[in-house]
């Protein structure tokens, strides 16, 4: 963290192109994120939102381009980055407790061979408390509801004590209470000087939750402050033929639109 200074953006992506087989999923993606921002990554299914995060984190090889974390490659500044994968990415029947999963957030700081101890346990408890899950610390993870599992993943990312966070659809399939808990947490992270990028699907809440948006559909449609960037024209561009549905769902009451995931 010593090499951070005010002029270096937390995330600068330039010319990033990613292909799974032949066809590029992401083409020449270039954007910059300013510090202390909650950024929504918005776009239709298959727009490459998750792929973008995976490519930035080096989980998916890129054909060209680079992503700089605080001005350095990801490999150098890895410790500054926290990642919340999609909830479905793991088997929740794994024999472990919520507290154990959160402690995994400290593994990177421990390095090879060293086991987590009392200090890690305490820190993990604090993180669970922050997401309102302290009472479930010793619960086996399959006995948690979907929203509670999502909160455990968030607590694990908190335990990493990063400054730049990537969250892949944390709001997917969670109830109102968890959604509110996540929003509170996002704002607290921002107050503490962190930057958070969130893959988000519910267009109705974008304006409420995020300072900036990154509109994506294979390439960057727009990136900037929510007020000026999150406009119907830009959405039309990002969602293409699906806009008819988008416009209709926007006219519906917020609650109904919120369920449209």
């Amino acid at each position, binding site marked *: 963290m010593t090499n951070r200074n005010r002029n270096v953006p937390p995330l600068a992506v330039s010319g990033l192109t990613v292909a799974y087989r032949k066809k590029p999923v992401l083409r020449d993606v270039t954007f910059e994120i300013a510090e202390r921002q909650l950024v929504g990554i918005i776009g239709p299914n298959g727009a490459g939102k998750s792929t973008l995060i995976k490519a930035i*984190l*080096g*989980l998916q090889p890129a054909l060209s381009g680079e992503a700089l974390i605080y001005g350095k490659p990801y490999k150098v500044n*890895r*410790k500054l*980055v926290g*990642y919340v*994968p999609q909830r479905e*990415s*793991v*088997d929740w029947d*794994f*024999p*472990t*407790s919520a507290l*154990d*999963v959160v402690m*995994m957030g400290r*593994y*990177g700081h*421990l390095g*090879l*061979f*060293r*086991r*987590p101890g009392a200090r890690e346990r305490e820190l993990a408890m604090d993180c669970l408390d922050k997401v309102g899950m302290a009472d479930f610390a010793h619960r*086996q993870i399959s006995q948690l509801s979907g929203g509670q599992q999502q909160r455990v993943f968030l607590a*694990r990312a908190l335990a*990493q004590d990063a400054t730049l966070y990537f969250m892949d659809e944390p709001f997917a399939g969670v109830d109102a209470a968890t959604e509110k808990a996540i929003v509170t947490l996002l704002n607290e992270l921002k107050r503490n000087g962190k930057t958070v990028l969130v893959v988000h699907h519910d267009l109705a809440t974008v304006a409420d939750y995020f300072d900036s948006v990154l509109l994506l559909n294979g390439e960057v449609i727009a990136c900037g402050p929510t007020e000026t960037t999150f406009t119907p024209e830009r959405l039309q561009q990002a969602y293409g033929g699906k806009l008819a549905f988008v416009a209709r769902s926007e006219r519906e009451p917020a609650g109904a639109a919120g369920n449209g995931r």
Partner: protein
Amino acid sequence: MLNLLTDPNLRWILLGSMLLGLSGGVIGTFSYLRKQSLIGDTLAHAALPGICIAFMLTGVKSVGLFLVGALLAGAAATLSVTLITRYSRIKPDAAMGIVLSLFFAVGIVLLTRIQHSSYGNQSGLDKFLFGQAASMTSSDLYTLGGVALLLVIACGLLYKEFKLLSFDPGYGRGLGFPMGLLEQLLLGLTTVAVVVGIQAVGVVLVAALLITPAVSARYWTDRLGVMTVLAGLFGALSGAAGAWISSGVSQLPTGPISVLAATACFVASVLFGPRRGLAAKLLGRRSARRRWLAESAGVAARANIQAAMQATAQAAVLTDGQANVHDNAHPNVHSAAHANERGTSV
């Protein structure tokens, strides 16, 4: 059979089989949790041609050489599976099915050639098919025991890393752990566990000592640490049972007996495991049903009492003492009683 406790040679065999079962159970826990139960079977079947080639090249029966041959063959087999899944649409289970039968076929062909040719002391090589713990020499046992201990120690040292690898490898990579390397290492350890287990249990059945104890252990606990220890324990018990019974009754192969013992363990776990077991599930459902019935009966009774209370309150004047008694029993009678008191005082 009882001479096992007095005969020092048999005691060694028992100890060796237990160590093999222990390491198989511990390593198997991770294979099972990584949903790679079949990988042990692939490695075991692939080991046979490796062992045969090692014997044909050197003409010596030595566990160390066989280990090297089996490791190389196992590496070739896992590499084939990886290549097939990466460059085609074939799923891993199908790829493993293809590879394990191919390697096993090659192994059987080589084994038959060895038996029908003039290689030195080839007798006993066929024991690798079904295992014969009693055929282990004491120097074999030292090697096997040492390797088994090494496996358990490696799993202990890298417990945290293997846990991460089994639960969420993508996240682990994000944390900066060399997940690809750890995966290869775990595969290597699995190969070693399989190869050292082959002499006791045999190529065909050694996979059972990886998977069955791990699956059984899952029924008893929700903690990975406890599960690993239990799987090791179940594996050791199965190995001991196999060695003991087969050395007592002549000509009985060790492997099948060990597998039968492991399966008995598994059946007991399925039936009696707390929470996950069948008995616990049945009992849980029954008690939930009883509780629900009692609760709904209670609701009905409370409604009746309330109705009765109102009736008596209207008919007679309530003393304070009586009211308190009823307060303790049913909080919602309280308001009814007070409402009636107010009603009478007005």
